[in-house]
């Protein structure tokens, strides 16, 4: 495994992408050059200050490539992300990454990405890469309402893939949960990232239909690199395992799912 890189990165651009949602491009060629879709970075402001985010916050790499910036899809949630959303071009953040396990995508079958909310982030990166390799990607993307939807033009611009959008109230795209977009009979491999209830539903469906599924989980983190044991999820065998190093992407069969 490669050691993570610590890098003070400049905000090259931060732009509003939807309600309380921002697209952030950070100048970090070293991390961008190494990151794989599904990996994440810890984003902090350094030890000089103690206001939230005092601890760095984990974010999926939303786009990256050699010599490129690291793109993040940032949604305001609590005090830490609210402050990060107030960053301006030219500000600097302290990055640690790339961290964790990436999605593994085999070349012989197309993938279906199931994104809930900012769970979209890793799939932007993944879709862009797959498209560059000329492969098919089906991207299902769900939000609660239209004002939360990351612009589908921007998604196409960034990835070359047109998302299939679901909103709970039907205010954009199809009405309903993103789950409705899954065609269990004909899907090859599923990848999912989003809120835990969504992951649970997808996992149930995958198990039921015997479909391979990789999920990216979210747990509170301390260090991001495996030392603090803060970020555990329950493994299929009932152990607490670290989502920062053994995840955040897991084969759904490695984890225990409530029944």
């Amino acid at each position, binding site marked *: 495994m490669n050691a993570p890189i610590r890098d003070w990165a400049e905000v090259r651009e931060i732009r509003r992408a939807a309600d309380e949602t921002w697209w952030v491009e950070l100048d970090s060629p070293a991390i961008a050059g190494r990151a794989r879709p599904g990996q994440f970075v810890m984003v902090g402001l350094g*030890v000089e200050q103690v206001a939230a985010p005092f*601890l760095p916050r984990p974010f999926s790499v939303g786009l990256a490539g050699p010599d490129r910036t690291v793109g993040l899809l940032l949604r305001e949630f609590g005090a830490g992300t609210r402050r990060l959303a107030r960053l301006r071009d030219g500000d600097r953040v302290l990055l640690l990454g790339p961290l964790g396990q990436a999605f593994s995508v085999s070349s012989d079958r197309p993938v279906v990405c199931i994104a809930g909310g900012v769970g979209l982030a890793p799939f932007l990166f993944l879709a862009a890469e797959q498209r560059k390799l000329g492969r098919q990607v089906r991207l299902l993307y769900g939000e609660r309402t239209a004002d939360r939807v990351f612009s589908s033009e921007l998604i196409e611009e960034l990835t070359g893939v047109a998302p299939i959008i679901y909103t709970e109230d039907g205010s954009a795209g199809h009405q309903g949960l993103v789950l409705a977009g899954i065609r269990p009979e004909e899907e090859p491999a599923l990848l999912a990232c989003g809120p835990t209830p969504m992951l649970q539903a997808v996992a149930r469906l995958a198990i039921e239909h015997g479909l391979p599924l990789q999920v990216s989980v979210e747990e*509170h983190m*301390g260090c991001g690199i495996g030392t603090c044991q803060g970020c555990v999820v329950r493994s299929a065998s009932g152990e607490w395992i670290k989502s920062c190093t053994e995840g955040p992407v897991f084969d759904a069969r490695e984890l225990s799912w409530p029944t």
Partner: protein
Amino acid sequence: MADLTQRLFGTQWQSPVLLASGTCGYGEEYAELIPLDEIGGIVTKAVSLEPRSGNPPHRVSETPGGMINAIGLQNVGLAAFIREKLPWLRDNLVRARVLINVVGHTEDEFEAVVAGLDGEDGFLGFEINVSCPNVKDGTLFGTDPAGLAGLVATLRRATARPLVVKLTPNVPDIGLYARICEENGADGLSTINTFPGMLIDVGKRRPVIGNVSGGVSGPAILPMGVYLTWRARQSSSLPILGIGGIRSSDDALQYILAGASLVQIGTALFVDPEVAVAVHRGVEAYCTESETPLRELVGGVQIPDRD
């Protein structure tokens, strides 16, 4: 050139900066981020006799100016530690010193861990954790004078290696506990462990932390740690390892001037691993500028006459 060396616990220390227990694993994960062998050393995650599975999530969360954790001392247990972790420490930390943080539910369990490790290579001594607020009985020994006396005396018989006792801040007078450690044969004190705390998710009306409560660390507790280090120093002549909220050399120097010979950095490592080296360099610069060897700064705070 500044002289940061000290002779403590029968050995030479090249730097006063250690990484605190539970925040640096068993060293390996930080090996490529921090030049571990150039700092003072590390204190391992707690080692217990049997493996412990730890608490349910969430285990960590941010608090104002700090963080709360309730890991529950998840660790691989004594046997696996010796097999899987100790060799790396032995091979990679040569000039830096290793203390093994030890926990147990009972005196016997503490003793078994200490005795089980005593004959191994790869570390200097023990940091006895009688102050973990995140497991039942975690602070039992740390708040009961008789229990602490008995524990320290027993462990003293079990090993000739340096025995450092990590104290809890959660007592009316830490000096009492410092003296008990000294009288029963401890070689040093670590001040302090975390403060018990709780966060509630008011939307869900549930504790944020799976274990309900946890230990608060980080900058928020800096002034408490400096105070308790100073108090411990008033009551005992044992060398002290100062801990709590350190994120700059200024913070470290506060502990040193209050009476700490060495300092440990915990939470701040999560914010920026480079802080360990930055603190070392800052202390070095201070010694250079004031033309004072580090060891002469220890406990050097001048207390004004009170009227």
